[in-house]
């Protein structure tokens, strides 16, 4: 068992079971609850890269089935007092997470292992969950922001595993066959592709022994240890297609939208790149806080209402997004030009020390908050486990970002915020038909 210290001096203990399941335990004294997360390297990118899977949305659909396919799972979790039991699927991963009372640790973990090992997917259940996923899809497409993000991904990363929508296309969802789903589960739910994380009130040695016993036969290891990573690595990541529009812009109208929205997107390096900590800080300079550069340009000057940022960093080259919510009547074309000028400021001169300190203080404060919350600790360790070679990578990025200099910001901004690496999506309202 390896031991590492988190920034607030909590100990994180790592070990790997014989079947390849990685376990991370972070005990905290005097806390009566435990946050639990299981991360699999099997998000939408996995389905996209597999020639035996012809449709989109399967990883997400399986996430649904794992809540519904083990008889009594929901009732038993409820009885045990577990809360916020849920899951999410994204490009690089599917994660299953929740909180439970510390006194119920053994029962909850046995139930977790059971739901993966004794999954029963009937045709009826499969069809019902397809129905639920289609309703979820319709709700997501109602959001102009979702439409913009899906468009940007499919246009800018169409030649990578990240180009397809995680939730799937409606025509794909309708056509899924149970056999295809079963193939996905057997291939991509492997113990050697999973990381189990527990953070909260428990005894370290006793819990380590218990996890070894409960998860010794977790799922079946019927594919080579490096199946998923090798499979994904075989893809050829060429430069993405570029819009025919040389301004790197696409536009669409959304019925009923009350105010225009502008999206800025730039291509990012993988999480393990040495540029990542600098880019994290650049994101804070640009879009985090009411005095960020974009907020000052749009909100302070009265043409925008707020700025959002997506915080996307992936295992492979991905995309980062800023959303500029404009006021009704704002000129999208001029707004695009203004946002481009904001990016130019970082590319053409050294960022003032005051600006840098502001961003570092915000970043430091945010991480100081996250590090005090068991589920956030589990999230940071888990997301790094599936997107980096080190489960501590998110914390390393934070600490490295605090040492970034104005010169580094200048150099990295020139590399990633250049006009050939930045794209825009412009959304305006349309009259109701």
């Amino acid at each position, binding site marked *: 068992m390896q031991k590492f210290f988190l920034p607030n001096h909590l100990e994180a203990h790592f070990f790997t079971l014989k079947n390849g399941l990685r376990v991370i335990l972070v005990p905290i004294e005097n806390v009566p609850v435990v946050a639990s997360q299981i991360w699999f390297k099997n998000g939408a990118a996995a389905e996209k890269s597999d020639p035996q899977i012809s449709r989109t949305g399967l990883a997400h659909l399986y996430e649904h089935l794992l809540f519904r396919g083990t008889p009594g799972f929901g009732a038993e979790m409820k009885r045990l*007092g577990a809360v916020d039991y849920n899951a999410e699927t994204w490009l690089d991963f599917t994660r299953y997470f929740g909180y439970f*009372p510390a006194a119920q640790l053994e029962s909850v973990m046995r139930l977790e292992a059971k739901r993966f090992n004794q999954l029963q997917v009937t045709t009826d259940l499969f069809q019902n969950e397809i129905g639920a996923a289609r309703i979820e899809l319709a709700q997501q497409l109602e959001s102009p922001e979702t439409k913009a993000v899906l468009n940007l991904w499919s246009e800018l990363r169409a030649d990578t595993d990240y180009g397809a929508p995680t939730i799937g296309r409606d025509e794909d969802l309708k056509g899924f066959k149970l056999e295809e789903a079963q193939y996905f589960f057997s291939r991509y739910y492997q113990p050697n592709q999973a990381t189990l994380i527990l953070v909260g009130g428990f005894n370290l040695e006793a819990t380590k022994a218990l996890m070894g016993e409960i998860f010794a036969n977790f799922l079946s290891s019927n594919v080579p240890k490096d199946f998923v990573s090798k499979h994904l690595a075989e893809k050829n990541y060429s430069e993405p297609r570029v819009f025919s529009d040389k301004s790197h812009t696409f536009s669409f109208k959304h019925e009923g939208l009350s105010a225009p929205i502008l999206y800025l997107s730039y291509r990012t390096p993988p999480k393990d790149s040495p540029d990542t900590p600098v880019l994290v800080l650049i994101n804070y300079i640009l879009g985090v806080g*009411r*005095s960020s550069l974009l907020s000052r340009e749009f909100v302070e000057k009265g043409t925008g209402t707020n700025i959002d940022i997506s915080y996307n960093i992936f295992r492979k080259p991905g995309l980062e997004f800023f959303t500029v919510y404009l006021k009704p009547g704002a000129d999208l074309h001029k707004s695009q030009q203004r946002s481009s000028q904001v990016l130019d400021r970082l590319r053409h001169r050294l960022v003032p020390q005051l600006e840098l300190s*502001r961003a570092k203080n915000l970043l430091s404060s945010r991480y100081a908050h996250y590090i005090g919350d068991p589920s956030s600790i589990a999230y940071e360790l888990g997301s790094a486990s599936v997107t980096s070679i080190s489960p501590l990578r998110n914390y390393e990025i934070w600490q490295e970002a605090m040492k970034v200099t104005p010169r580094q910001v200048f150099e990295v901004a020139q590399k990633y915020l250049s006009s050939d690496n930045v794209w825009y999506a412009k959304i305006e309202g349309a009259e109701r038909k």
Partner: protein
Amino acid sequence: MRNSSTTINRSKALAFLRCHRASVSLLLVIYWQIGSLLLFPVSSFAREIVIESAPNSLVTELGLSFAGGYQVDPVGREGLSYLAAQMFLRGSHSLSAKDWLNKIDSIGATAEVSVAVNRTTFFFRFENRQLDKVLELIQDALVLPRLSLSELKNLKSETTINLKKIQESAYELSVAGAKYSLFNGSRLQYDEMGTMRGIARVKIPDIRRHWRRYFVQKNLVITVATALSQERIGPILRQWKSKLRTGEELPEQISVNQWPQGNLKVILIDRPELKSYGLALVRPGSPTTFDLFPELEVANSILGGGFSSRIFTRMRGELGWAYAAYSDYYDIDYPTRTGSVQFTYIDPPAEYLVDAAIELIKVIDGFYATGPTEGEMKEAIENATNAFPFRVAFARDRLQRTVEDIFDGRPQMTSTAFNSRLNQVSISRIKTALSKEKILGPAHLVVVGDLKKVPRLNEIESFGNSVQKINIEDLW
């Protein structure tokens, strides 16, 4: 892009059990039954500063909660309390909004404002080392707010945009339709942000009056979760608080609207641009002061809490007609001393909407008629017992309970007292609670979406004793 499954596990610990206060409960039930004006008392704040120790935490969380909330908005100026609260983030006499926010940002602090039905809260999170600087900035804005006309103009414009944005969601429209239907004629029928017309009418003198009246020492409860020692932070906060305006405590009672009477009512909100649908069944519920409220919470957990509830099992599990399917008492903000609202929500597609509505009513009626099974009750009670640690796990949870105790009349309970009360829950008591709940008022069915695409919609219209089509303009 990020997808979640069913998502909210509504089985979260049964909310806060209430001590027996028979006289208050009786009084409130009488109010309901005669449909007269409801009144509720505002507590006096015996504990003005509450500090919870948060060892190992690198950040301090500071909350300033003032009694009042959006229920005190004058007729025709719905949105005043929201705008007044937001003006806190718009500068002080010595600093413009821009400079004040820059200072907050530059030390890495976050400042947020929220307005609930009965209180306004200013919330701050910052690294422990920034305590003095943050307190200085808060005091600056709270004692001498800038309240400038140009900032109010900007704020009104942003608030109007935000109001329009929530009109793009079937869920938000369902909540708005339910409030409109249940509380028609009172401030509670509108969103916390108010109405378009109300926002337009608010002027700087209104904001000034609101500040003078409500954001004063006597209405303030300060909560702090911190690793800093109580000896260090306590005196600073007391001294800091003494610099705020003194003002007067709120009067003992504030009037809110009566519950509606009659049978099932159907509310239709036609939104052709929506692709998804919302279907909410709401009914007036008992106050948390009701003797049998713990039984009602157990009952609701069985009916609509979590993946094993009756509603989820039937509507999504067996029929596949919905993605979300739940019921609870907390989707609609209401002064819990006077009552609550049981809100049941599903989101079926157009082709199943009518059948889903019929089935949902059948599931609920069936439950009210027969009550739970022994097994269901046992599961729900065990859930509540086992989940108790979540109420006290962290400093912020304990503070949340304290604030609810003070403002909403939900006293904190020890684990022993909580379990002892749960041990009294029985099927017969649950049935008694449900039968009393039915007396309180009729259910309201709210349907939202592109109604022209809903087959057999007329079958839903025939459910109620009245059908009302609502325009968006009526809701906001």
